């Protein structure tokens, strides 16, 4: 398999990484995800990495890049379900993913995205009137 499926859930995109992330796969994911954000008008992206045993510096950086790219495309990224060992490894590598938001599991991540986007929507309607 050289593509990770991206599911659309309402305003959000859900990416569940179920296989070992190798570099090619990560590059493909980054490409697909940016395309999909644009084509689906997504407001948020959830990346579930609970099945990942190991994250190296490249994948760590890739997650950061994906978050930055999505932000430019006006979508919030939340990385969810990171395992303790992975978190420790990333911190020891000096990669604390400063630009990436994190949550314990998909449910929490979804709540977080909803909260953020409703705040944005409220601000938007305050300045520009109701967009919907």
């Amino acid at each position: 398999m050289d593509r990770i499926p991206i599911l659309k859930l309402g305003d959000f995109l859900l990416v569940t990484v179920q296989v070992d992330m190798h570099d090619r796969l990560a590059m493909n994911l980054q490409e697909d995800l940016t395309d999909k954000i644009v084509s689906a008008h997504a407001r948020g992206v959830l990346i579930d990495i609970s099945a990942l045993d190991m994250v190296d510096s490249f994948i760590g950086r890739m997650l950061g890049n994906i978050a930055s790219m999505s932000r430019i495309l006006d979508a919030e990224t939340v990385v969810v379900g990171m395992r303790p060992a992975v978190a420790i490894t990333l911190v020891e590598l000096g990669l604390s993913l400063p630009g990436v938001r994190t949550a314990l599991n998909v449910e929490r991540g979804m709540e977080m995205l909803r909260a953020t986007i409703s705040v944005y929507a409220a601000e938007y309607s305050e300045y520009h009137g109701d967009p919907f």
Partner: protein
Amino acid sequence: MADQERILPELLSKHQTQILESWSAEQLRNRRPGKAGISEEDLRGQCRDFLNALQEASQDDPSDDLQSPIWERARDILTDISREQSKHGASPSDIATFVFSLKQILFQLLQTEIGKRPEVFAREIWTTTLILDRLGLFTTQVALKIREEVIARQQSEMLELSTPVVKLWDGVLALPLIGTLDSERTQVVMESLLEEIVRTGAGIAIIDITGVPTVDTLVAQHLLKTVAAARLMGAECIISGIRPQIAATIVHLGVDLGDVSTKATLADAFAIALRRNNLVVTRTTPAARRQSAE
């Protein structure tokens, strides 16, 4: 050399009872008063076992190389004796003296046996000294090893004891740190905190450093690492229990705590945690309680 008769093993077997008697008497005399040592029978037993082993080994092996397998039984017995004695509070030198005190007795016997042949006498004195010295040093090594085992065990116990993760409320964990944070401890702290975050699904973790005596750049770095790791798991960290001196040190060292929230006391941090979870604490009166009960 075949013409060199081995006097020592012969001596040991010939005068065994006598040696045993005077040696254990010597041991008992040397025993420090008021100290609960091992019992007299045990001591006698130890002496007997050791003498037997010594006799056998010196009989079979003229090379007095303690590492050879022939000496294994003697070494094992000495190890047991050292263990037993140090359990009863004997110091390494006490245990070494146990072996060294055999010298005088053996020398006296050698003198009465072969004192008239100075060359043989000198040679035998030398071999005996050599063997006993090595055995004495061996007991010291064993005693040190025992101590090291104790220290290692205590260290690992302390490591486990010193990193409790407690649940303060639903979704709120606290990590009271006590003692200096080195890298090894940080690792343990980090792991147990992250495991607990996964287990309880907590969203907020309070790291209380009231019990951390000093915070230098290294400790601060370890703290920040823990905070970063918890954040990657989706939990937010609050550092509490920062004493004025520590605040001053942090500033003087130029440590940047970034956007980590810090509070002076655990209570303040807990209040913040409750507020973030949309919980309020209210004071109530007995009358109001009764009313709500109805």
